[in-house]
């Protein structure tokens, strides 16, 4: 659509400047990120949101409001350096427990990750409430089942998570490359007979029969 010859040949398509205005209007009006597909569905037929988005990103670079890419979506967000002006807008954040924050980080860096793997990393059973809270906040969702015995469910982070933490994609997590290089993101199954005892989280009533040292002495 950017080819001038094509543009003149097909006068039905709005010119790029007009398409930029349209994408700008739609994204400005929306609180949530919109994907290229969402935008295309709202634009007149023949528009190419990708070109318009690229143009808008340039226009808004360095402004008080910037066009952010969030996963598959795009959204306008205020520039982070102006947060000091926003006391009245600051949303009271729900207080997350240390367990919830750690669990979130483990899911983000190790995704897709099973509950057993989260527990193995933290050395503590994951309470159902912690995962429920993260899922309810729409930061975490259930991913595909792992193709291993028992077909356990995995957990992954969502686009809402990326939006909240200002990440274009899960690949942009801070320190991800270093952690991977250090081998700290490998799923290294514990050597046989080497399971650490798993502590029960406090006040958790739904942890099943697995006693902390269940498999500790089983080889002995």
């Amino acid at each position, binding site marked *: 659509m950017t080819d001038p010859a094509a543009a003149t040949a097909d006068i039905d398509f709005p010119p790029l400047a007009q398409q930029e205005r349209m994408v700008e209007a739609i994204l400005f009006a929306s609180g949530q990120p919109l994907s290229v597909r969402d935008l295309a569905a709202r634009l007149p037929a023949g528009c190419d949101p990708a070109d318009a988005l690229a143009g808008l990103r340039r226009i808004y670079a360095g402004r008080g409001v910037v066009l952010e890419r969030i996963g598959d979506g795009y959204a306008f967000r205020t520039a982070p350096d102006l947060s000091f002006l926003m006391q009245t807008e600051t949303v009271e954040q729900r207080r997350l427990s240390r367990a919830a*924050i750690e669990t979130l980080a483990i899911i983000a860096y190790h995704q897709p990750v099973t509950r057993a793997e989260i527990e193995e990393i933290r050395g503590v059973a994951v309470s159902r409430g912690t995962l429920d809270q993260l899922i309810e906040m729409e930061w975490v969702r259930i991913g595909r089942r792992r193709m291993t015995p028992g077909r356990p469910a995995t957990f992954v982070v969502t686009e809402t998570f990326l939006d909240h933490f200002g990440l274009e994609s899960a690949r942009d997590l*801070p320190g991800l490359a270093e952690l991977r290089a250090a081998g700290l993101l490998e799923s290294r199954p514990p050597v046989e007979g080497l399971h*650490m005892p798993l502590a029960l989280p406090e006040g958790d009533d739904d942890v099943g029969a697995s006693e902390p040292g269940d498999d500790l002495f089983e080889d002995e």
Partner: protein
Amino acid sequence: MTERNPVARAASDIPYLRPVHGPASDADSVAHRRAEEALIVDVDGYEGPLDLLLTLARVQKVDLMKISVLHLAEQYLAFIEQARSLRIELAADYLVMAAWLAFLKSRLLLPPDPEAEGPSAEEMAAHLAFQLERLAAMRQAAAQLMGRDRLGISRFQRGSPETVAKKRRTEWQAGLIDLMRAYARLKTRDEFRPYAFDRQDVFTMEQALDRLRALIGYAGDWTDLSDFLPDGWASRGARRRSATAATFAASLELARQGRIEIRQPGPFAPISFRRKPVTDQP
């Protein structure tokens, strides 16, 4: 960033370590007392033995990669001893970990047994070090994550998002066939029969009933069934059979309604009807 971040604090110092002014206050040297206090812990503050081990490892003040697992195991066991002497109640998993570390410690101190199966003591120690390093890395990552420019704290979405009106357009489905069917239905309504099993030689029971109802009034005395057959139906085989069967069936219905009486002297004998005498009616 005004938010108080427990992970960030965990990364920077040793949380949950609280001096307890307990019975161990008879210690003389300040250093000794400090060391003791450092070990006397609000156990509830730890999220399990691995968390405690990580805290103890930080006391070693070395890179986690170079940590001495043997030393760590000794520290842990000393902590457990201390807690016991102070009668601090420890959850079972702390004791299980203590047993496991005691086992690991003895394996590390003894010369390796070439006959022994399973992982060597060094492998077990390396794995424990890896677990501690990985947990520390995840805590660090969590702190970094929480320190980002978060939506609603540092970055903001449109304060008054405009609503998108949802318009529903109905597309009516109707084809030429529907139109023609509708018209055909209307134009042929009077003769409309979805199913027609037309046979020339069928006298229906409804027809027979009508005929019998009309004629029975005149049959004050026994009258043979064949006399009720309509003109043109009494002679030929198929038509006569149909009319006979229909008339007989109709007569049974009228008899059931109490309007006629039926008589047959014997098997295969002629059947005759008469109107039910009025005196017999209730």
